[in-house]
């Protein structure tokens, strides 16, 4: 669970970072340094999500989870069941 938790936290911080750059770029669409950072963070985020879903199951129901039986979407833990400290 420790590895799982640290992967979740990494995904959350990368996603927050990407959203912040998203908002900045909305008003500064030509800022090259911000664009470079956005695409770099986006790539890291996609890799982190894909890796998490392959190991632990879906973050999104239409995500990258490998084909699996039984239906993995209803497996726990749900977000509110995770102890974030």
């Amino acid at each position: 669970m420790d590895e799982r938790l640290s992967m979740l936290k990494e995904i959350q911080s990368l996603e927050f970072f990407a959203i912040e750059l998203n908002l900045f770029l909305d008003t500064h669409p030509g800022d090259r340094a911000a664009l470079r950072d956005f695409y770099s963070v986006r790539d890291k985020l996609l890799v982190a999500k894909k890796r998490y879903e392959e190991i632990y199951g879906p973050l999104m129901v239409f995500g990258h989870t490998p084909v699996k039986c039984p239906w993995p979407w209803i497996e726990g833990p749900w977000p509110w069941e995770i102890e974030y400290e």
Partner: protein
Amino acid sequence: MLQRNPFLTRPLTPGSQENTPKEQPGIEAAVEPVTPDYQAAGFYPTYRLARAYVVRQKYGPLFSPAEALEKGTIFPDLYSPYPF
């Protein structure tokens, strides 16, 4: 002698060439133009009363992703927690 603000350059009304008040004997009061041309001036002039401003943000150093999530912003320039 009337001191003109060199950064307030837009005419008061369409067609008028000058912001400088007409020379009138005994009248020294400066007439401020209604709409200063900030862009022509090339920088932000002194703030005036009863106007709202949004200063354009510049891209600079960022927090690390983990620190940013903790602080609620990736921009140190925008980080200003309430002092309590």
